[in-house]
């Protein structure tokens, strides 16, 4: 089991991710599972360049990402998996990818979303996905950067 962390962050790779999380986790590879980014050659290139040298970035759509993450979970290399939405995390879990913890670190405000915790917002569908993940045995924590105190989704939901 070398998925170091499975994170929901709608900015995918950004300052907090490269400067804090990557170092704290000691991850050697970033896997982004996101249909929109997988379709956008330029955005994919930006994200590939966003990681420090020596940390390869892979971008996959949900179907390819599910297969790839399953494969990497049994590989010794420590991997950091990032997606935009808890709904994607639920799809991975439903497809048989095992992870004991989902870190939710960034979901911006947007249409249909209401504030959940600090700068994290969520839509009813996203809340339902987090509830279902918990029901399947994956703990869901709200934690923006590594040295924040993790707050469990179970303790804040309405």
């Amino acid at each position, binding site marked *: 089991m070398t998925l170091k962390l499975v994170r929901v962050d709608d900015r995918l790779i950004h300052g907090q991710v490269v*400067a804090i999380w990557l170092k704290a986790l000691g991850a050697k590879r970033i896997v982004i599972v996101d249909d929109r980014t997988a379709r956008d050659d330029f955005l994919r290139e930006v994200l590939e*360049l966003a990681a420090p040298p020596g940390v390869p970035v892979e971008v996959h759509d949900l179907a390819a990402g599910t297969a790839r993450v399953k494969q990497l979970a049994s590989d010794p290399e420590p991997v950091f998996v990032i997606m935009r939405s808890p709904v994607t995390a639920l799809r991975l879990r439903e497809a048989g990818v095992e992870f004991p913890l989902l870190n939710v670190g960034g979901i911006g405000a947007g249409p249909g979303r209401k504030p959940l915790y600090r700068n994290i917002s969520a839509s009813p569908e996203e809340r339902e996905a987090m509830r279902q993940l918990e029901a399947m045995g994956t703990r869901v924590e709200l934690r923006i950067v590594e040295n924040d105190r993790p707050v469990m989704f179970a303790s804040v939901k309405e």
Partner: protein
Amino acid sequence: MRTFRIVVAAHGELADAFVSAATLICGVLRDLRAVGLRPDDSPESFGERLSEALQGDGPVLVLTDLVGGTPHNVALMLARGRPAARVISGVNLAVLVEAATSTDALDAATVERLVALGRGALSDASSLTASRSP
């Protein structure tokens, strides 16, 4: 006279602080703008302000603070399709002052020179002085 505009894109107050520090050294500088990423910004809301700052005639140099950070990622995306825009990451005061006082055209040679100067500004200063002390 500088032949290009400069936009500093960075996290928090850093962009404004870079402009303020450069002004302290160089005096009033024209065509120099700062766009800072606020804690409540999304890439889209930051992108709107950066895009607005990039509007204008002629070449524009974007200096970003951190490779992989949102200001940098968004700057790269906005610079796409703008042949007159160049992005340099890892801004420091030395490179900003040099760029702000440059009279060169914003071409590949100038960008290369600025990057080299910025890299050269970073040194293990203590070991340099230690080797000179008795």
